[in-house]
């Protein structure tokens, strides 16, 4: 793989409801932030990838809202509809193709503007499943139950993820929900859909994020040294929940395998310095440990019990607080990449993992983490 790296990043603060801001407002904010961060101007950007979802935005051709704000006048532009990390993947490919030396990737969502359960209900098959009223939370509850029953993972073990991530969010000025909580607080929080309780679930969030990819030559113009893409892969599982083994994530295993192969990683627990994964629900983080090969199948619960993924652990996971602390759907995946980049740069402030040479970012898309994207970045 040729060299392509990130030279600029920008995020909004993630908030429950950004009343005074529109999609273009947020996109302009993060575009300017990313350009400043890179020390580049809009003229240095060769092409743009926007990421948005028509259902979440309430308009078909949702990309139309942000054309002006992302500075795409006189440039090629395209749009990925899916998690921001997948959009970043496409943005990187556009540079690797040789057609462009830089790509700006932007993603936005204002989950506060509509009803999450109606929007996520719409991802289920209209002929058989939708009328059952499944949405993101109820389907996650099904998966959580399947996972916990299959491997004997407990609600308390899942709760430890929430305690860890909300606590770590205190070090992240962008996070929406930094919280000082104990396992007991999670166990006593309002039941949404058993076994998922309020503190097991990510919040409703508004936000936007941007990254700038550059090839080797263009990266020389940027302020900071680029953080190179070392490996990447993505993969999709089957669609109907009943066609899948919900306790396992073969798509994540496949995506990670590709990313590790490109990056030359054979023992992720030893060789990856920090990981930012998409913990949309607390149980998911444990499942993703397994899919990413940090432990064997079913070993997620033990990993969190042993504290292996805390800030002092052998592989810190989600120092940013993860999706549990801020989840503007789709933005979350790109936010994971941005956090990974900041870690490698040594710019992660209070959430910095010492001696970070490489970092892993992970994003999911579709019901119950059907699609997974894994990226490894480093110097």
């Amino acid at each position, binding site marked *: 793989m040729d060299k392509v790296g990130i030279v600029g990043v920008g995020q909004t603060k993630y908030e429950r409801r*950004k*009343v*005074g*801001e*529109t999609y*273009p*407002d947020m996109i*302009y904010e993060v575009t300017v932030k990313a350009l400043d961060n890179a020390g580049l101007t*809009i003229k240095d950007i060769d092409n743009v990838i926007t990421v948005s979802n028509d*259902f979440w935005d*309430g308009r078909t051709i949702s990309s139309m809202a942000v*054309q*002006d*704000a992302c*500075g795409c*006048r006189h440039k090629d532009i395209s749009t990925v509809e899916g998690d921001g990390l997948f959009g970043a993947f496409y943005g990187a490919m556009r540079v690797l193709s040789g057609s462009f030396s830089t790509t700006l990737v932007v993603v936005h969502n*204002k989950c506060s*503007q*509509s*009803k999450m359960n*109606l*929007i996520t209900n*719409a991802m289920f098959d*209209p*002929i058989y499943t*939708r009328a059952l009223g499944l949405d993101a939370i109820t389907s996650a509850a099904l998966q959580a139950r399947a996972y916990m029953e299959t491997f004997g993972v407990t609600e308390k073990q899942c709760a430890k993820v929430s305690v860890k991530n909300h606590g770590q969010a205190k070090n992240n000025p962008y996070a929406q929900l930094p919280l000082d909580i104990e396992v007991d607080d999670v166990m006593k929080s309002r039941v949404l859909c058993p076994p998922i309780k309020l503190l097991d679930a990510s919040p409703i969030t508004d936000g936007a994020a941007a990254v700038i990819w550059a090839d080797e030559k263009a990266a020389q113009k940027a302020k900071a040294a680029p953080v190179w893409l070392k490996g990447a892969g993505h993969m999709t599982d089957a669609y109907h929940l009943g066609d899948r083994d919900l306790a396992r994530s073969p798509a994540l295993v496949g995506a990670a395998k590709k990313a590790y192969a490109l990056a030359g990683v054979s023992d992720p627990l030893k060789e990856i310095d920090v990981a930012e994964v998409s913990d949309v629900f607390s149980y998911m983080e444990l499942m993703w440990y397994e899919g990413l090969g940090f432990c064997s199948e079913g070993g997620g619960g033990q990993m969190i019990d042993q504290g292996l993924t805390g800030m002092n652990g052998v592989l810190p996971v989600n120092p940013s607080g993860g999706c549990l602390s801020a989840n503007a759907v789709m933005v979350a995946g790109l936010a994971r990449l941005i956090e990974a980049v900041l870690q490698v740069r040594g710019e992660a402030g209070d959430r910095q993992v010492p001696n970070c040479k490489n970092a892993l970012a992970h994003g999911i898309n579709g019901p119950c983490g059907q699609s997974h994207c894994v990226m490894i970045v480093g110097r």
Partner: protein
Amino acid sequence: MSQKKDQELLFVSSGEAEQPFEWSAGKHISKLLVEMRDHKRLIASKCPQCQKVLFPPRRVCADCFVEMDELVPLKGRGVIRCFTVLNFGFVDPNTGLQKPVPLASAYIQLDGTDTMFLHALEETDFHKIKIGMRVEPVWEEKRQGQALDIRHFKIIDE
């Protein structure tokens, strides 16, 4: 040899599937809607770099990629730059009901601006509409801070 029976092909209807939204208007559009609601006035944004006046008002001049703070008041009259009269109805996604037709609409360039914007015309006979005609807004008596506080634009002699 038996004949193959025609297979019954079914549909599954979504029924009334609502997707309610509450979109933030943002600072600039909010200012415009408040001006419209309270004072029957229109305002536009002016770019500090290229000096273009853009209606509807917005934060970023896309050509220059700079923020615009300056707001310019408009008289409200303008010119028809193009028009059409739609004859067939469709389900209006904002109401869920059939959109009444004929629906006459035009891109109007308001005096003092460099862009066009879409709004309805009063006249629905396309023989009587010509590009270049001057128009002025017809305001609703009770206004709520929305686009249709201007019911439509009417052609004037000027």
